């Protein structure tokens, strides 16, 4: 499998009033063609920032400090706004978290779909409409012709997310970045949307970068998982290995906090403490103050992300 997207030593900084905070710290990650990769971590771990930095759409005052984003063989991190525009929504699409907020309330669904096509290809209005209808059918929206003239408030949350997915499919992108696509939906709809995403990625051999804090969701859909903590990747490996044989103490803690993994104990296991804010990341391993295995070296040296005995890449001094 060739590399579709390769993030190399990426650093993303936020220039605050008095200091500069590093939200993504020396992250290297690859998505292969047609691969579904999960990016997991707590809120504030830098998952979304990493996702947005791929298409250089980080909210101010964030910016890419150094590193490369290579997409289909080209370093797109050096692209200017106009060059990046031809990538966004065209070869890399995004799906946002809250479908209630993602669609513009005063524009019809048709207008919001067609404009995406017209921004990237010189096609006629009729051709654009035909593609919109085809994609709406693909996400199982009934009577799509009528839907095009409707406004977002006339749809339920699940349907809106389907429409957002349909928008992301319009230009047959090579990669979809889905940032918590099911978090704002209720559980039954969540499963429906994930099944749909899985089906679409498989049928079109699309790459998927699924950003979520929900381990159940990633284990369902992805082939590999990257676990993020305080701006760094702490563990990376095949989904089955990560879920069944987690190596890094943080990953183990996360999985131990799941009800079905907690075993016989009546209480769910908790990782002690909270993830440090960006300004308070300890020296050495960022997880050292919450880790029950931490030794002296963990407070001095940051562990590199290297392949361990299990085959997973783990950033921990204590794992062999």
């Amino acid at each position, binding site marked *: 499998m060739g590399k579709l997207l390769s993030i190399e030593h990426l650093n993303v900084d936020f220039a605050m009033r008095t200091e500069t905070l590093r939200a993504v710290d020396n992250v290297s990650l690859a998505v292969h063609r047609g691969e579904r990769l999960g990016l997991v971590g707590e809120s504030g771990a830098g998952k979304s920032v990493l996702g947005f930095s791929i*298409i250089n*759409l980080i*909210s101010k005052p964030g910016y890419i400090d150094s590193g490369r984003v290579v997409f289909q063989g080209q370093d797109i991190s050096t692209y200017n*706004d106009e060059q990046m*525009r*031809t*990538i*966004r*929504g*065209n070869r890399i*699409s*995004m799906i*946002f978290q*809250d479908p209630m*907020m*993602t*669609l*513009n*309330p*005063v*524009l019809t669904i048709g207008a919001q779909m067609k*404009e*995406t096509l017209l*921004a*990237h290809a010189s096609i006629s209005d009729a051709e654009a409409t035909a593609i919109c209808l085809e994609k709406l059918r693909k996400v199982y929206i009934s009577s799509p012709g009528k839907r095009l003239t409707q*406004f977002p*408030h*006339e749809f339920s949350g699940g349907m809106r997310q389907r429409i*957002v997915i349909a*928008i992301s499919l319009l230009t047959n992108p090579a990669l979809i970045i889905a940032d918590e696509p099911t978090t704002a939906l209720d559980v039954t709809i969540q499963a429906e949307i994930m099944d749909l995403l899985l089906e679409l990625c498989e049928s079109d051999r699309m790459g998927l970068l699924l950003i979520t804090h929900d381990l159940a969701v990633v284990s369902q859909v992805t082939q590999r998982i990257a676990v993020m903590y305080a701006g760094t990747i702490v563990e990376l490996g095949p989904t089955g290995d990560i879920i069944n044989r987690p190596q890094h103490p943080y990953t183990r803690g996360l999985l131990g906090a799941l009800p079905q993994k907690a075993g016989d104990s009546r209480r769910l296991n908790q990782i002690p403490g909270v993830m440090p804010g960006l300004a308070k990341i300890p020296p050495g391993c960022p997880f050292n103050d919450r880790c029950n295995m931490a030794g002296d070296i963990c407070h001095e040296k940051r562990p590199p992300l290297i392949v361990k005995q299990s085959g997973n890449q783990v950033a921990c001094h204590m794992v062999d």
Partner: protein
Amino acid sequence: MFAFTVRRILQAIVVMLVISFIGFAIKHNFGDPVRELVGERVTPEERAQIRERLGLNDPFLVQYSRFLVDALHGDLGRSFFFKRPVTEVILSKAPATLELVFCASLIVILLSVPAGIHAAIYPRRLLSRFIMGSSIVGVSIPVFLTAIMLIYIFSVELGWLPSFGRGETVLLFGFWESGLLTKDGLLHLIMPSVALSSIMLPLFIRLVRSEMMEVLESEYVKFAWAKGLQPRRVWYVHAFKNTLLPVITVGGVQLGIMVAFTILTETVFQWQGMGSMFIESVSRADTALMVSYIVVVGAIFVVVNTMVDLIYGLVNPTVRVAGRQ
């Protein structure tokens, strides 16, 4: 949309009733219609007779309902100074004021929207800083000072523009004295409209800017960027259309307020409109005229607001549906 329109019009009628009630209460307490009708020489007994005949001794509500019925027939009483029905007096003064407000609104809308959008999209540019800086200055200078400065610079020193009055007017439809159709009339309109707009313009610029900045931060604008749309489309279609909603509601009310603001401008420029008429009627204790000014301005205000709500319903799809149900 139909149900929504009907509901808004019913609300407008209720507001008008309240205004008319307040207006009548003022008239009832301060005005003495007998004084307006007869001279000094009439004896107290004769006055009492006239009062009885005119129904002025009837209960308050009876008199109010009579006032209301008369008002609905277009009869708001007689001005004791002009010796004419007040509706006639106001109608002859209204065109001057309405044209002034119309021109000032045009200035406000045409300048504030582009200036506000520019300041929102490029908050760090020099031009944006200049716009925001001067809007603070503009909003802090009172209208009469702006007006006097304008007169001093453009009439006294430069001699470019006339300093008072409406200039040459054309009579339209038999009652509307318009200054919009002659060059002289338009020249006379420039300074009063600029002075009148000087307070609203900075407020509108700040309103458009802050609303636009808020919308630019929204998820759907971020999604529009993620779709790879051209910047023009994101700004002027996605962001601006949403900026319009609050601007229409707040802005419409502000433009209505401008009708009342004309009093100062009209006084400085000796503009023969409703504002200066009101000031004169106050100094002459012309109660009927004062009260009808309040009712008429109130009515204009209500009509503007109702229209604003209807336009809002056209722009905002969610309101239209609410009306349909």
